[in-house]
């Protein structure tokens, strides 16, 4: 069964590079530009993994994680967030909101897949 991954980031290049990497790894990728946009992909579809940026114009990553965790069908879906080395305090905040893990930017494709491998199979 092909896994559906939702990538949420306001940067098109990040969306592209994540999308490209994951599609090549056999995932089916949906992309949203921010938390608000991302929600439309969650309804009526089975998303197996959410990868979200934290800083986004409309509804930031932390809020999105909270929203997803409140949805009955997604209360246990793995959520990874994108963060940078310098933002350690954000890590805790996101974890508290219900995130499963994180990916440190910048990353290479192998690193991304490694993190994903920790949360879905």
């Amino acid at each position, binding site marked *: 069964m092909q896994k559906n991954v939702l990538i949420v980031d306001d940067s098109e290049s990040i969306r592209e590079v994540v999308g490209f990497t994951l599609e090549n790894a056999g995932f089916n990728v949906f992309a949203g530009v921010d938390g608000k946009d991302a929600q439309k992909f969650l309804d009526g579809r089975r998303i197996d993994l959410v990868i979200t940026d934290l*800083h986004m114009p409309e509804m930031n990553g932390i809020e999105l994680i909270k929203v997803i965790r409140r949805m009955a069908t997604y209360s246990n879906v793995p959520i990874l967030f994108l963060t940078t080395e310098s933002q350690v305090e954000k890590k805790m905040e996101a974890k508290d909101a219900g995130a499963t893990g994180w990916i440190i930017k910048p990353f290479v494709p192998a690193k991304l897949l490694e993190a994903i491998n920790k949360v879905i199979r």
Partner: protein
Amino acid sequence: MDNFQKKFREEAEDLVNGLESLLLKLDADKNNGSIIEEIFRTMHSLKGGGAMFGFNAVSDFTHNLESIYDLVRAGKLAVSKELLNTTLESIDLIKILLENKPELSQNDKSLFTEIEAKINSFIGGEKSTTRKDSNFIAHKTEVTDGTSYYILFEPRPQIMNNGTNPLYLVDELVTSGTAFVKAHHLNLPPLEKLNPLNCYTSWEIVIFTKLTEEQIRDVFLFVEDESHILIDNLGKTNILESLKFSNYLNSISESTEYFDLQTLTLKLNNADDIEQLTFKADYKLNALQDNQITSIRVDSEKLDNLMNLVSELVTTQAALNLYTEANKDPKLLQINESLENITRHLRDLAFNVSLLPIETLNTRFRRLVRDLGADLGKEIEFETTGTETELDKSIIQSVTDPIMHILRNCIDHGIEMPAERTKKGKPAKGLIKLSANYTGNTVRIIISDDGAGINEEAVLAKAIANDLFKGTSKLTHEEIVNLILLPGFSTAKRVTDISGRGVGLDVVKRKITEIRGDLEIKSEPNKGTSITIILPLTLSIIDGLLIDVNKYKYIVQLSVIDKIYALDKNQLGNTKNKIIILDDEQIPYSNLREIFEFEPHNTDIIQMLVVKYENRKAAIIVDDVLGEHQAVVKPLGKLYRGQDFISGATILGDGTVALVLDTNKIIKQLSNN
């Protein structure tokens, strides 16, 4: 990565422009927190993206700027005219840096130093060290033979609430080496108190791996705050190969006890105690079932070689069979029988190994739909079902281009522009579905769209223009639609069309026919088009029945044969419509000699094969049925393209060639008449 870089640069230019206008806004409203926040966020994106896409100068430089605005954000630095000026100058510099030239001009260099100095003065003289390139590569695997570790992983019960699956982590660790895993369920509450969403398991892992302690910790990176994790280095010896350890394992394997770490280390510290296991294989089977290699990657060329060798083996086997039969040597008969058995098993296995699921192509299809759809300004959703269906890898290879062409047709000609769709009362977003399933000895791949359907008038006009249809008789919609599959429907000019777009389906059909497949098409105006590709499940080697027609031998695939009848000539009756009633069933029949336009053949006893495909049956009369034969099917080659009822050829034990009948096509023809 060039494309990504280009994309990032475009994006960065937007960010920089946005930053510029934000700064001007901030100039007018110096205490507006949300503007400051926005500026910080934009800088952060620039920095992150820069590092990601190899614009390190941009990234490093922006990092310093970001630090300033971090201070501003925290109220530690006031927004001043000087600050804004420096920031705006910095933006100009970023624009230069974004060109990503290998070397800055002398002018730019001095500008760079100047601005950097100004920035540093804002960060309170405390020189912000330019960030070094982050360490991208995760694993610098130590070149040691490995280390044994004892690991205890006790997640807190609520660990799964945030989407963590602790098993994946155990699995990740275990696959990095050889490991023994013991799971404990000590804290399991009584059933009525059990929360199915909680995790009550903890794991003990003894592993011999190349990972460093830090790398092991990395495995549990996401959960270390919510788990009790203990890692103990047991030294460089592979404890799993120690006899003492395996004895110890056996002694506790049935119990729920935890490892006695002390015993473990004691046993190991005494190096003399370590003996190599002689019965390693057995031991591994018993104790390490979790860690067997379940799949390996094999060069596809090796697979091709294997298949070729197996094909040759099957052909040689046929020769041996002939010789054995002629010789009547009982010992040889016996040997040949077991050899034939092995050959058959080997053949099935080799065939099975070459199967690939259709979903290996999904990414290519999805990309095509996305990219071409976007180029044409169409929004299209692409859905796949049943793509786990497996096909021989050579069939997958041959079918990729045809499917890509069909998809192109769907995107280009099928799905309408969003405005037109809305006008028709359809969702603006088009839908293309690809589904696959097994039916009998074939696999069907169905590609459908919810687009405009095939334009009847256009097809008719073109068919008449290309002399494929006289335009005299009245055709049903289905018949018209199927005209596009006729050879020569699309002219050579269209075939060579740039980028292969607009390729005719007749060409696709021909390509499919070359691999013994078939193409069917259905279309409804404004509802969409559905194209079904029917492919043979087996490609290279089949179990066949050898028959004789007009002194030449033919092969019929055994799996399609329902029954074989030997009938008296009179039983056929004199029916003109060529229907015979067999076991209360009306079955259309024909003589192969007739189908092949050979001289008729007069015998009193008629050999009739009833063959089936899906729910259709047909009977074919042959001269003689000779017996079973494993056939390596080889293509007849391009010179025999368009051969309707022959799907390939095989070499018999005596070195002559027998043709393989395409019974599906024969059935189709007979049941359509």
